[in-house]
């Protein structure tokens, strides 16, 4: 259906306005000054490393969002991005830490390992779905939990972990395996992986819109029956889509691993995969939309620190994230209906001319 520019831009704006309003009410109730709060959120962008950090985290969410979106394209709900990215991160960190290779090659090997590991972890639900008809929703929920146990084992000192102080993590990756970033002095360092993420996003767009595979993927997503009749092998598509989704999920933790942390600690953050679902939905599975969603998500995340700093409950940011996801889709729906009504009115005006020749019919 045709959507005007207004129809594309208005909803997110409405949604943000609505969530800001909602949070304002919450803040007033708890006796905080909303202006301080929103001032701090905007102000943070011009202070310290927040702007750069937002982009860096945005890259992480972007990759997770793309991974989820690939599944969505063919109606696969890969909740398992969470487990896949964490599993891949650990494997990549372990292998990256155990080997030393020339710069560049080392990095590349780590990236490939992460992709393979992510795909491997997605292979299990894919096989279960294709050969046993197990819903990917339930199998990936289970595998997310199991991934935690696997990671715990892999990172333990019995396996590949090393203990530093009270923390355990993988052996740090040598500098040859790092991915250089763009330093902005006191304003932080932009991860080199941000560009890789952008490239992956571009690849996603090309794949979906310009290749046979993308066409078959979307076709299976829209109508499995029509796709089958059109010669698309449903099983193959499920396998490929899941593996691809898992592969991209495998990249999720790499911006941080290669650009800053260089090791995977047992305290390394979880939850990017779940955020990826929200981001993919916010971006309506469109690579550009996901990018905006990812950056917005990251921005709200960062705001927690700034809000805490001015004494505002940082839970506000979670409320805001939820409110935005919900209201953005509602706003899209409202705008869609408005445009529909406008179209109906337009048709109504043209009515006279359209029916004049028909009225000449007469009776027998």
């Amino acid at each position, binding site marked *: 259906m045709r959507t005007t520019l207004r129809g594309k831009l208005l909803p997110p704006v409405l949604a943000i306005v609505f969530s800001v309003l909602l949070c304002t009410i919450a803040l007033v109730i708890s006796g905080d000054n909303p202006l301080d709060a929103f001032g701090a959120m905007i102000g943070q962008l011009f*202070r*310290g*490393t*927040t702007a750069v*950090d937002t982009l*860096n*985290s945005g890259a*992480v969410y972007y990759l997770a969002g793309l991974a989820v979106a690939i599944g969505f394209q063919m109606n696969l709900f890969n909740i398992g991005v969470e487990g896949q990215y964490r599993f891949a991160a650990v494997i990549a960190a372990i292998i990256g830490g155990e080997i030393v290779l020339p710069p560049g090659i080392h990095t590349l090997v780590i990236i490939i390992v992460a992709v393979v590991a992510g795909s491997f972890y997605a292979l299990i639900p894919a096989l279960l779905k294709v050969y046993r008809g197990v819903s990917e929703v339930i199998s990936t929920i289970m595998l997310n939990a199991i991934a*935690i*146990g696997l*990671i*715990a*084992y892999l*990172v*333990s000192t019995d396996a590949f972990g090393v*203990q*530093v*102080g*009270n*923390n*355990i993590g993988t052996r740090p990756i040598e500098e040859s395996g790092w991915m250089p970033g763009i330093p902005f002095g*006191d304003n*932080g360092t932009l991860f080199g992986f941000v560009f890789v993420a952008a490239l992956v996003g571009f690849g996603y767009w090309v794949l979906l819109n310009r290749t046979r595979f993308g066409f078959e993927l979307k076709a299976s997503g829209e109508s499995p029956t029509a796709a089958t009749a059109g010669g698309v092998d449903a099983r193959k598509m499920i396998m490929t889509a899941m593996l691809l989704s898992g592969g991209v999920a495998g990249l999720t933790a790499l911006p*941080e691993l290669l650009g*800053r*942390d260089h090791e995977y600690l*047992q*305290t390394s*953050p*979880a*939850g990017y995969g779940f955020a990826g679902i929200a981001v993919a939905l916010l971006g309506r599975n469109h690579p550009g939309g996901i990018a905006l969603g990812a950056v917005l998500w990251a921005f709200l*995340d*960062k705001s*927690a*620190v*700034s809000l*805490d*700093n001015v004494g505002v409950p*940082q839970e506000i940011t979670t409320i805001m994230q939820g409110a935005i996801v919900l209201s953005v889709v509602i706003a899209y729906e409202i705008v869609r209906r408005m445009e529909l009504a406008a179209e109906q009115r337009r048709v109504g005006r043209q009515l006279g001319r359209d029916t004049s020749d028909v009225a000449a019919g007469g009776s027998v």
Partner: protein
Amino acid sequence: GCAKDTGGGSTPPAGGNQAESCKKNPVPTGGSGSAAGSTSAGPKVDASALKVGLAYDIGGRGDASFNDSAAAGLDKAKADMGLKETKELTAAPNEPEDAKQSRLRQLAQEGFNPIIAVGFAYAKSVEAVATQFPNTKFAVVDDDTVKLPNVTGLVFAEEQGSFLVGVAAVYKSKNCHVGFVGGVNVPLIQKFQAGFEQGVKAASNDAKIEAEYITPAGDFTGFQDPAKGNVVAAGEISRGADVIYQAAGASGKGVFEAAKSKNALAIGVDSDQYNQKTVENSRDVIITSMLKRVDVAVYDYVRAVAGNTLASLPKRFDLKADGVGYATSGGKIDDIKATLDAYKQQIIDGKITVSDKPSN
């Protein structure tokens, strides 16, 4: 018939009677009796010029755990040393490294000095930010891996305190069978387990020990699930343990309740849990708590910064420095206090060394 349960465990084993089922090892003697040296005693220090920043780990002030303990230290410093300007910030769950750095950086930029980061999760961020602000002093609770001149590690000998409650557990056990419930299987909690087990072994060669964790490393829900804490503790009790030591964060509440409803006893952790509001329903089974004095460490650190005596801070807050210990509220271990203190003196004197790694 069908009857209402009367809220079981109304009569926990009384503290007084020492069951003879467990053959105790002889209590060591010969301690010099030198009092534990607390650095807090000393000349009065004025810290009113200091702006102290505190960065908590997840949970923050009020978590009834180590964050809260740090907060208590800060409050005491305010009261005793005239500290005026302070700021407390709290970490969110699952935040990435840069959020921690931003938090510390914000404090540093606003002129807070010293800045105390609560929790070893801050180690890397402190390292990064301390390099950026060489003139600001930082401290990290539970970590001493950062080797920078302006960073002080505040670490504890949890195994030593746990050793003592291990001894207490044996003395209070009727079955000669005790248990440990850890929240998440991480090195920090393993220290508690290690000390406890050594204490138990020291007190009696016959004692049997159950040691379980709710979740493996990386799955931090183990600190957040009283329902599961309850089940794990109940499992240990059903295998015969009758004194359970918990180091399970918020899940500990479930451990206490399991002990209460199954007529067992429990030992708290970190702060004096007998007096803790959130577990007050089951306080009568809490015979003691292993104290980890983050408050002391924070207080001493602020004091040392104010008085410019950082070098005098202990490397580790151990029994000697009064950094760990055991609680006596409720009076349930008054009868064995002498025994515990004898062991304590042995440790302080170095006659007993407690390892921080579990044996298996």
